[in-house]
């Protein structure tokens, strides 16, 4: 594996198309997803469904990754990554990652045109019924297919379930993991919202007791599809983390450039400068890593790229958010200031789709650095 300069043939920059997409997303979020609006999510408010509808339908992001023949935009993971950067930048409380990336990936693997088309149009919002903390290498189904063909089981902390119209449920049979479609309003499923560390991606506990379902994939392909969806999710979550980190850095730089203490601009204190320089370097590295993960979506190196992305970018986002709070001083601790929104998202993102330790362990296998 060392003979090839992995990535040398993949473009890690932003294309003009991607920059244009970024601008349209940012323009919408700038007016409809301000920090004040997002903060109200923690007290039960927030921009919620209408914002998502604008993004999903008006900007046609719901179908970004869906091929044109199924009613989507036929864009690549690189474009989705740019969208996620912006969603991270605004800590937007919308189910793009869970519905338009992970669920769409699973639906595409299932080859079900109807499901894909409805997800693409935004008619349906979907969620994969696994705990948000599940990484591609650690997935095992918590739901089983009962003798009567219905589904039964509990799945904790599922992201996107509250917003979902349909749930894509990996379900165990004796032969392996199948993938099932369950309507969110099916009487056999109970979705209990969880008071979440990150209310901008609120999770829910699911209880399925005799839920009616339609099988999308049988046991020969279900697990691969689920892992693939989680892997793509992990690869692209890195871009959300870059958006979070970049935003934290910018917020901090802007604040410290105007803040004065001891008669000097705080951003001019060398210890602060060096920390910001280090942070900038790490954010730029996270960007390169996240771009590589997005560009590698169709590449055999994707497993390495995705695990590297989660191992690295998740840490950088947390660091950036923590530095943001710390370097702001007291104001960074207040409810009114947006730093905490980033901190909570960054920390929850770190646990999402496999934590750094889990991805490093997976990397150890992939690049042949065994533990013992």
């Amino acid at each position, binding site marked *: 594996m060392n003979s090839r300069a992995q990535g040398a043939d993949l473009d890690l920059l932003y294309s003009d198309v991607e920059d244009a997409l970024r601008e349209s997303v940012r323009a919408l979020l700038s007016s409809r997803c301000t920090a004040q609006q997002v903060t109200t999510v*923690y*007290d039960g408010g927030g921009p919620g469904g209408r914002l998502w509808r604008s993004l999903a339908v008006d900007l046609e992001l719901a179908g970004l990754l869906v091929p044109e023949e199924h009613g989507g935009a036929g864009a690549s993971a690189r474009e989705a990554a740019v969208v996620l950067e912006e969603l991270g930048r605004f800590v937007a409380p919308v189910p793009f990652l869970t519905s338009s990336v992970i669920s769409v990936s699973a639906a595409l693997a299932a080859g079900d045109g109807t499901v894909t088309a409805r997800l693409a149009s935004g008619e349906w919002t979907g969620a994969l019924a696994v*705990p*948000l*903390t599940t990484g591609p290498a650690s997935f095992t189904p918590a739901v089983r297919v009962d003798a009567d063909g219905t589904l039964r089981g509990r799945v*904790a*902390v599922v992201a996107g379930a509250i917003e979902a119209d349909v749930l894509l449920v990996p379900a165990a049979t004796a032969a392996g993991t199948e993938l099932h479609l369950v309507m969110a309003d099916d009487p056999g499923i109970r979705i209990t919202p*969880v*008071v*979440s*560390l*990150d*209310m901008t991606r609120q*999770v829910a506990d699911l209880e399925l007791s005799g839920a009616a379902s339609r099988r999308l994939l049988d046991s020969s392909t279900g697990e691969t599809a689920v892992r693939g969806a989680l892997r793509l999710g992990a690869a692209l979550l890195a871009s959300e983390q870059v958006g979070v980190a970049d935003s934290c850095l910018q917020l901090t730089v802007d604040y410290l450039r105007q803040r004065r*203490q*001891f*008669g*000097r601009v705080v951003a001019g*204190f060398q*210890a*602060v400068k060096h920390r910001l320089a280090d942070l900038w370097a790490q954010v730029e590295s996270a960007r390169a890593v996240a771009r590589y993960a997005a560009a590698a979506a169709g590449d055999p190196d994707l497993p390495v790229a995705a695990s590297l992305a989660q191992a690295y970018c998740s840490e950088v986002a*947390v660091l950036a958010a*923590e530095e943001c*709070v*710390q370097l702001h*001083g*007291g*104001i*960074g*601790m*207040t*409810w*009114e200031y947006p*730093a*905490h929104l980033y*901190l*909570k998202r960054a*920390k*929850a993102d*770190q*646990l999402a789709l496999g*934590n*750094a*330790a*889990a991805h*490093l*362990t997976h990397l150890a296998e992939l690049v042949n650095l065994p*533990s013992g």
Partner: protein
Amino acid sequence: MDETLRTDLRTRVEELLAEHDPATTGPLEFLRARFDAGLAWVHFPGGLGGLGLPRRHQPFVAELLAAAGAPDRDRRRLTIGLGMAAPTILAYGTEEQQRRFLRPLWTGEEVWCQLFSEPGAGSDLAAVATRASRDGDTWVVNGQKVWTSVAHKARWGMLLARTDPAVPKHAGLTYFLCDMTAPGVEVRPLRQLTGEAEFDEVFLSDVRIPDAHRVGAAGEGWRVAHATLMNERIALGDLAPPRESGMIGVVAGTWRDRPDLRTPGLHAKLLWLWAEAEAARLTGLRLHQKLESDHPGPEGSAVKLALARLAQQLSGLELELLGADGLRYADWTMTQPDLVELTGGDAGYRYLRAKGNSIEGGTSEILRNIIAERVLGLPREPRADSGVAGQEPAR
């Protein structure tokens, strides 16, 4: 010689207990009597709750009284008064102030808060803008304070205000004892990232403070506040706790209780943090053994620095360890907590709350400056606004 002292202390405790049987005496009455017997804090002077003995004898008295079932205060609710106000009043207060304030402070009848930080003056106390203007025998105070713990419960506040705007920034400050029930004092809760409002903002509008409640001379506030803050840093870190106290104990407990969560990568992190936590504990213990006087030096800053960092890293690690459960949070509803326990709440709360450890009571950046300048003797930061590079922490 300690033996003689101990015998004497034992006698005094026995006399106190004999005259005020805890079984039949009300708690407040007993505490007042204990104060008057000089057994409140033996290192304080006679007549002010003490006997002028070395501080190290206090635990002995406390043990005897506890063994006898004597009532005690909830010290955790009086941290600011006991840890900061008391030493400051003792060092700089008039005899009248000492007699008026120390007894109810110690018994817990009067809760204290600290009115230093301002929105525009965080770590830079020399930038305090709250004004106090002299009007005969009183001072008239106007301004805004922030990050005040328990202001809504406090009867008295240690107030730093600018009394002379004409002189260099640090020279124009004066230190007052502010009656929190006085007209013009308005307290508003300040919500923080945990969802709760642990601190308050305090608005001061034409608040009148008698000159008798000034501590130190007018213009000497900087020096007095300094003493308060040095004590704050020590008060914040209990220096001789047992192994696995604090956040490391919580996380080690989770590790032991939940074998299902363990992974090799997290194990390596946990072990290193365990070593660092134990190193920090021993460092505090060594400092504790070193502190014979009542005047803690800048060395304590290092312990606070380390403990803040460790609390943050450990609570962050705990969330990673918990995984799915780490995504849950108990409650975002805004409340004003009665008492803050840094290792209390759920893991998410601990993680968020720990972020304050390196900001409150002197930011870690300010503490590093203090160590660099006062311990290592490195040059002070160039300061553009005054000839004096004074740097004092708040939160």
